């Protein structure tokens, strides 16, 4: 999409700024995005108003086509929207799995009718989606899934169990992988959509080590999915699932090189550990590991930049992109570990006023961050993919 189509970026910036000033409720300024909370409370009136305003503009999904409710804008304009929201202390209220993974996949593989039905509610933030992929017996080996879908003429009847379904307790709809042919593994999987608000859907939240319950066991008993909500061909769901996982990984690795927000490790170390007469972090062993981590983060960012430039130049997409998930997620996990170590006992508080919010956040973030190398294809599964697809080493496990 052409950026600005010859238009003036500063005029667009002014338009956004005036719109934000007129529409963003002052009481929400600087408040965290309720979408980012793992456990959701009922939204306030102001939160609802802001979501509806952004949703109607399509600016929560600025680069999606406008005929489906997106902003129809280029990446430069999207960046301006992001900057102006940031300047005003506003968050993007449109998010979740519909935006991150399902929407982009449906835009690529859905029929016109499917896109017209499902994309606009995502853009408005009216509908929340959950991902029904993993099962107790199908994690890394996702294609081993057993949830059955029986053909009933105009619909499928679904029976089985999913697990680790993030946000299932808040979701309106589910994009789900089901088995439509038991005689084949990968070629017997279909990609279907159905509403979570129907009899036969049962969700049981699971408590995690970080204390919250952002995901669920999900049971389906005679759940109905209309035939019009089969995405792609019957038994052709695996290709679509792989594409969706790429969006999931892309989202995960993007955060790698410094996208965690918060203060730098060096700042934290100055406060919690102190400095010596020369201004160096007082604990030399820790200092070495902090520098190493900074250097790793910088080289990760340099690689992201290089990959972007290379994909613009003639050299085509770089192999560098495929390594980003492992490098980015390991880096983020180590950042959490170092944060905790730097804070000492103050970084181990579970609750209570003996600890600052930043300290309580550190311990929860550390625990939650352990998932980065598990979901979206685990660290080990990514290493299998690198060794097989990029390095050309033989594959003993076959499918990944």
């Amino acid at each position, binding site marked *: 999409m052409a950026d600005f189509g010859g238009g003036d970026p500063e005029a667009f910036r002014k338009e956004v700024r005036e719109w934000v000033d007129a529409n963003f409720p002052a009481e929400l300024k600087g408040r965290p995005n309720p979408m980012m909370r793992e456990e959701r409370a009922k939204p306030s009136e102001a939160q609802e108003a802001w979501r509806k305003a952004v949703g109607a503009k399509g600016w929560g999904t600025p680069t999606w086509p406008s005929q489906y409710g997106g902003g129809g804008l280029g990446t430069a304009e999207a960046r301006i929207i992001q900057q102006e929201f940031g300047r005003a202390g506003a968050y993007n209220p449109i998010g979740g799995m519909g935006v991150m993974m399902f929407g982009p996949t449906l835009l690529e593989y859905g029929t016109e009718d499917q896109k017209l039905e499902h994309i606009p509610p995502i853009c408005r933030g009216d509908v929340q989606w959950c991902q029904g992929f993993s099962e107790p017996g199908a994690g890394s080996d996702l294609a081993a899934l057993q949830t059955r879908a029986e053909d009933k003429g105009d619909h499928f009847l679904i029976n089985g169990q999913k697990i680790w379904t993030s946000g299932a307790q808040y979701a309106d709809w589910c994009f789900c992988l089901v088995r439509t042919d038991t005689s084949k593994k990968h070629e017997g999987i279909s990609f279907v959509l159905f509403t979570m608000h129907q009899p036969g859907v049962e969700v049981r939240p699971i408590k995690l080590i970080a204390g919250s319950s952002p995901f669920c066991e999900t049971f389906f008993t005679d759940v109905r999915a209309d035939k019009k909500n089969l995405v792609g061909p019957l038994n052709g769901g695996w290709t679509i699932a792989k594409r969706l996982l790429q969006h999931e990984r892309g989202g995960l690795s993007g955060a790698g090189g410094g996208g965690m927000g918060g203060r730098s490790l060096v700042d934290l170390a100055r406060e919690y550990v102190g400095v010596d007469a020369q201004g160096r972090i007082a604990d030399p062993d820790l200092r070495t590991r*902090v520098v190493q981590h900074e250097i790793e983060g910088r080289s990760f960012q340099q690689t992201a930049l290089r990959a972007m430039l290379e994909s613009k130049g003639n050299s085509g997409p770089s192999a560098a992109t495929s390594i980003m998930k492992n490098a980015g997620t390991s880096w983020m996990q180590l950042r959490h570990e170092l944060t905790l170590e730097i804070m000492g006992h103050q970084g181990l508080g579970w609750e209570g006023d003996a600890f600052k919010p930043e300290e309580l956040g550190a311990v929860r973030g550390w625990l939650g961050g352990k998932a980065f190398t598990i979901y979206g294809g685990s660290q080990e599964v990514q290493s299998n993919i690198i060794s097989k697809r990029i390095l050309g080493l033989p594959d003993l496990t076959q499918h990944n």
Partner: protein
Amino acid sequence: MAVLNEEQSMLRDAAKSWTQEKSPVTAFRKMRDSGVEIGYDAQAWNEMAEMGWAGVIIPEEYGGSAFGYLSIGLILEEMGRNLTASPLIASGVGAASALVLGGSDAQKSEWLPKIADGSVVGALAVDEGAHHAPEKVALAATKSGTGYSLSGAKSFVIEGLAANLLVVSARTSGTPGDKDGITLFLVPADAKGVSRKRLALADSRGAANITFDKVEVGADAVLGAVDKGWDVLEKTLDRVRAALAAEMLGAANQAFETTLDYLKVRVQFGQVIGSFQALQHRAAKMFTDLELARSAVEAALQAIDADSPDVPELVSLSKAKMGDVFHLVSNEMVQMHGGIGMTDAHDAGFYLKRARAAEAAFGSQSYHRDRYARINGY
């Protein structure tokens, strides 16, 4: 790989085909077995100079091509792959950069054209101990008539035996450890009072210890300002470190690719060893690290070409990261080759030895991590 312009692509292609044809690892082995003292093949160096490689960072008015540091990095990367030994870094980057950055018109006119055509080999005589510490200069330059008299010793001077021209850091005031009070001198290697002792190092490359016994030089031998040599010295060293990191990038990539090829052909337990996940995941980790290191090395070279203010930190970043990665990959090369990797007949040992020598040269990983932190205020 960075996005290259036409010049740079041609240079890289030329370097690739020349090193593969004229200077493969077998050539390095031959050089080592012959025991040639300077640590490189003089005939091969002549050919490199004829192709203009020694003048890549030298301005056109002094006989160079001024293609820049990313360009010379591309050549060095190909040389690194094949372990090509030459004084390109010491002379075409080290001495040349010192002259370009700090030389008077007369000094540049006298030396740069000869460095560019390869007839003069320059070297940096900087360190005085087993660890890189460029501010710890004790070698004294005292006033003597209208010029100076130099006394002291330099150690582990890379290409110190082959060099005709030495760029020497000397102390004109202060004490070892002070950055102030360091002055750079241009000293012909055959000057009276200079004596050199060849060092035979594990990587078989050229190096020497050099003593200076009341070496008399004129005032016109001072490169830059008296007592204020640190600035040019540090900038020169950063250019050498970045160039060395480029050579290491090539060597590490070749070490990895050779190992990967072996994993695909060596059969044990009825299958190629590359099918064992214990080796696959280490290979995936090496590949990932090599990509990150490439980004760091290219970013440092590009920053030098852009004369960006963050050159020092980007160079330290690249030398530290590249050192870690070459260290890992060279160890794994031996390990994954099993017994054959332990033999002198195999190339793995060459890469392992080169890795440690290159890591130590112009600042080890710990030197550059420390420097990176200091630059960033911690």
